[in-house]
């Protein structure tokens, strides 16, 4: 499965049919038994009869357009299309014969009459050959021959001349992606594929997911990289390194170059679908900005000096050891990355605990989903989502809270939209009107546009309705949950302070809408909650996660397909980095460092004595740096200066340290304060595993040698060896073997098993040797589900006369987090700058026009960017993204954070917006600082 010749996916012509009674028929004399509802075409394919076709494929519903797949059925008149004809008991089907040959010949001639001769290749050429068409009787009207190729999209081109108007692209956009951006314009020979209202693809509603390119049976829609590099020769199956959906891809190679990334049909997270990032935005790996040589410098005022790996590693180790000798073990720490593999994060935390003898290790999940870990472990016993993605197919009511799946988790959003189009009801809880609120063929039953910072109040109000109106699933609660805890919780939420009528005044959502949404979720069948950082990145982030868990338990929406509590993870390996023991208080598998038996296990494996006390979290490290007790930091694959809150505070903390070691692809913002730069490798250049939001562990496979010379795990290994703690793994498989030996939930995981099964959802152990798609079936991991009291406590961040608006931040489809990767790809065309979304009322009040430069100021700092006037945000709320370091939205965000985990409150900052005429002082000085800090000294002539 790993590296092989180019994969040719089997295509059975039409999609499978679930369940149904068995039907037996014969096709060309061969008997076949299939579920009722299966097409004759699929049944034929299953017994090896390949019926000619152009418009049919098993990823799309049958369409019956091309008329090549005609068959004859004994006892029935005519020649029906086999793709749209369902099987029936006892049918005798013939797929060949004189009449069928004649009809197919005629159909194929008509196709070719509108097809340039040089394009008669691929599936068209094959169909022509099979139909025996050697010449076309009709001359060559070739209506599309002169049509101009649409080159507007940065990644693919559309050549109407090569198009056979089979509608596969249109149907893929409709059925798979759910954007409905394409249609067929015109009639007869004038029919043509049209993006939106006959616009260029780039300017249309197309979201560049690539589904149309994937579905196109000709070269009409083709990747520009294939045109430039030639057809690929071999495939390697690997996993996308962007969001937490974890799409499986074929890296299609020609020699050692990636020609294209195509979504793998057998990928269990994505089932052959992709988004603009994973499908196309991978060429940052070869960007000119990438640093390929290690660099060091004495102080951050010096220019960088390129050195050998040995010199850089020795310099880093000596500095860390010197700091510890002078200031103690706790004066240094490390940060693992959710962009890196499980094996790499495991090694970094091992380096911290075993080589540096400190629990000062944290991960970038600190600033996104740390409240998920805390909250779900308290309620259910496991720090992870409860379902697999396929579960959404069984949901009847979907509640999306503080998440924007079409932008941040687009491939899963397409699955969700498919279910919504099939009739599931949608509740959106979000201050903004995200796309899901109203998108083609989907409209939310309820959009609860709450005031930022009031999630807990709103969820308590929903729970109030469930309890007060007798909607509790009492059997579930009695059987599965801690009863006294439930009773205390029920009394708590039943209090009038939590009634919708009271909460309306807090969160700004009408009581009637709160009541209606609660009733729908509690009584509408399978209720599934999906949530994102709009839940966690609050001062009550953990409380919100607990409130969600309470609501799901009270309504019995756990422990089976179609329900559950599902955190949508931001980065590719957020789940994995948390699983691997990256938090300062726990070892892999979420076991607290104070538990002696757990510590003993690791001490015996690692040959060291472990500190039983928790270490510092990222914000604690920065605070400690400013008071002088924390002086050295090893950061793998995270740009804490751009991504963490209150940039000025972060910059001051980094500047106060004696040794900052950054391991990354590019000289990011944090690297401006670093003394050692260790060039990292991309996901294409190393082996390992990622774990996605559904706990699915998937292989990352090396498709090319690391351009920097070493995989990230090898760099950590070298640093550890230089610190006198030997690490000598020969391959990441050996690291996974150690993880499995030390972590009960990973006990059954190995590379061999991953290769055999394709992927594994943990827990994977003796009780679940092939993994666990749905958790808490029959019993919660902690035993009885725990109801927790979730009192609403308003954030300390308040609006007032000076800062009257509330800022909330997020991301867009084309960009990824701090943009280090996506800004260095063609995706920049969709989002060249961060913009400030502001409601027309607030803009008019301030004299702001669309596109005007505005100053965005908070109590912490100020920045400037251009305004985007839109009704997507409510009056009083503004919104921006954090993809561009020039904007540095986190200059204005505050250090307020979640009470339990320190997860920053990115989603609520009191701000003022005024017209501006240029960059702020902070932006100008940061720009100058970065220019100075990124100088690389010329190498002297020998």
């Amino acid at each position, binding site marked *: 499965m790993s590296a092989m010749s180019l994969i040719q996916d089997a295509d059975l012509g039409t999609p499978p049919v679930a369940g149904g009674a068995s039907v037996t028929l014969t096709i060309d004399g061969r008997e076949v038994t299939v579920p009722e509802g299966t097409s004759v075409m699929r049944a034929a394919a299953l017994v090896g009869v390949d019926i000619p076709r152009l418009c049919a494929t098993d990823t799309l519903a049958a369409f019956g357009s091309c008329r090549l797949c005609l068959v004859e059925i004994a006892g029935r008149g005519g020649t029906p299309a086999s793709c749209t004809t369902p099987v029936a008991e006892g049918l005798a089907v013939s797929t060949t014969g004189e009449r069928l040959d004649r009809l197919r010949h005629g159909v194929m001639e008509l196709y070719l009459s509108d097809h340039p001769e040089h394009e008669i290749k691929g599936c068209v050429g094959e169909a022509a050959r099979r139909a025996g068409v050697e010449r076309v009787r009709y001359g060559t009207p070739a209506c599309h021959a002169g049509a101009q190729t649409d080159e507007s999209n940065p990644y693919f081109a559309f050549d109407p001349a090569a198009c056979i108007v089979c509608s596969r692209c249109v149907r893929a956009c409709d059925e798979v992606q759910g954007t409905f951006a394409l249609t067929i314009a015109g009639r007869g020979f004038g029919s043509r594929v049209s993006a939106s209202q006959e616009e260029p693809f780039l300017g249309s509603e197309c979201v560049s997911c690539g589904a149309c390119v994937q579905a196109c049976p000709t070269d009409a829609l083709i990747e520009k990289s294939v045109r430039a590099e030639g057809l690929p020769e071999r495939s390697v199956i690997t996993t996308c390194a962007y969001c937490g959906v974890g799409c499986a891809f074929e890296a299609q190679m020609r020699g050692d170059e990636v020609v294209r990334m195509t979504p793998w049909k057998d990928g269990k997270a994505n089932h052959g679908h992709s988004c603009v990032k994973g499908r196309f935005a991978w060429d940052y790996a070869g960007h000119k900005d990438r640093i390929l040589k290690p660099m060091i410098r004495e102080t951050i005022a010096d220019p960088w000096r390129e050195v050998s790996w040995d010199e850089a590693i020795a310099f880093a180790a000596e500095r860390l050891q010197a700091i510890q000798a002078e200031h103690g073990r*706790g004066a240094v720490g490390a940060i693992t990355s959710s962009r890196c593999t499980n094996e790499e994060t495991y090694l970094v935390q091992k380096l911290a605990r075993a080589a540096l003898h400190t*629990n*000062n290790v944290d991960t970038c999940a600190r600033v996104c989903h740390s409240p998920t870990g805390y909250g779900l472990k308290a309620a259910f016993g496991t720090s992870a989502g409860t379902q697999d993605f396929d579960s959404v197919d069984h949901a009847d009511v979907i509640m999306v809270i503080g998440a924007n799946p079409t932008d941040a988790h687009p491939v899963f959003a397409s699955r969700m939209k498919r279910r919504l189009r099939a009739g599931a009801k949608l509740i959106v809880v979000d201050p903004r009107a995200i796309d899901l609120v109203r998108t083609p063929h989907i409209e939310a039953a309820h959009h609860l546009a709450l005031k930022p910072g009031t999630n807990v109040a709103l969820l308590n109000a929903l729970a109030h309705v469930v309890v007060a109106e007798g909607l509790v699933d009492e059997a579930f609660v009695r059987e599965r949950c801690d009863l006294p805890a439930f009773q205390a919780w029920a009394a*708590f939420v039943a209090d009038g302070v939590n009634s919708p009528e009271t909460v309306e005044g807090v969160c700004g959502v009408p009581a009637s809408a709160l009541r209606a949404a609660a009733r729908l979720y509690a009584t509408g069948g399978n209720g599934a909650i999906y949530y994102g950082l709009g839940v966690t990145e609050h*001062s*009550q982030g*953990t*409380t919100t996660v607990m409130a969600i868990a309470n609501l799901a338990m009270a309504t019995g929406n756990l422990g089976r397909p179609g329900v559950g509590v599902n955190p949508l993870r931001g980065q590719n390996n957020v789940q994995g980095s948390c699983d691997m023991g990256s938090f*300062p*208080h726990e070892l892999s598998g979420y076991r*607290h460092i*104070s538990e002696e038996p757990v510590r003993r296990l690791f001490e015996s494996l690692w040959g060291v004595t472990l500190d039983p*006390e*928790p*270490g*510092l*979290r990222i914000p*604690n490290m920065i605070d*400690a740096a400013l008071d002088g*007790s924390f002086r050295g930091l090893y950061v793998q694959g995270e740009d804490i200066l751009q991504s963490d809150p209150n940039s000025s505070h972060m910059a001051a903390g980094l500047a106060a340290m004696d040794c900052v070691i950054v391991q990354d692809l590019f000289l990011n913002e944090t690297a401006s304060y670093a003394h050692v730069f260790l060039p990292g490798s991309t996901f294409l250049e190393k082996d390992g595993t990622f774990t996605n939001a559904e706990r699915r562990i998937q292989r990352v496979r090396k498709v090319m040698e690391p351009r920097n010379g070493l995989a990230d795990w090898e760099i950590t290994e070298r640093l550890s060896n230089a610190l006198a703690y030997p690490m000598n793994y020969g391959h990441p498989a050996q690291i996974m073997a150690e993880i499995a030996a030390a972590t009960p939930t990973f006990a059954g995981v190995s590379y061999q098993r991953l290769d055999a099964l394709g992927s594994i959802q943990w827990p994977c152990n003796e009780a679940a040797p092939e993994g666990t798609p749905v958790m808490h079936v029959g019993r919660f991991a902690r035993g009885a589900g725990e109801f927790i*009291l*979730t*009192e609403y*406590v308003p954030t300390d961040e308040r609006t007032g006369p000076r800062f009257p608006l509330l800022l909330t931040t997020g991301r867009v489809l084309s960009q990824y987090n701090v943009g280090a990767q996506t800004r260095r790809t063609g995706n920049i065309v969709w989002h060249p700058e961060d913009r400030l979304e502001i409601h027309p009322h607030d803009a008019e009040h301030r004299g702001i026009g669309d596109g005007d430069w505005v100053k965005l100021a908070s109590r912490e700092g100020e920045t400037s960017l251009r305004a985007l006037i839109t009704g997507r945000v409510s009056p009083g709320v503004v919104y921006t993204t954090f993809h561009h370091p020039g904007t540095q939205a986190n200059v204005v965000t505050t250090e307020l*954070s979640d*009470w*339990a*985990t*320190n997860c920053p409150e990115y989603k609520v900052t009191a701000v003022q917006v005024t017209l501006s005429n240029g960059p702020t002082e902070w932006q100008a000085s940061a720009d100058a600082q970065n220019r100075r800090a990124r100088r690389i000294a010329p190498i002297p002539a020998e």
Partner: protein
Amino acid sequence: MANQIGAFFRAQGEAAAVAGVEDHLRRFWDPRMRREIVAHLNAGGEGLTPSVRAAVARLAQD
């Protein structure tokens, strides 16, 4: 932040809140942070809510 922790546990009643805050500080705060808040209490504990004061007082007995 300690008061935020106290506010979360407040709904559980005074005794449970004190125990909850103490447990949280022990399990999730690095020892130097615990020392700092104990020192703050010893210096008068300005701003600390009652349940947090009681919890930090227990830490101070270590």
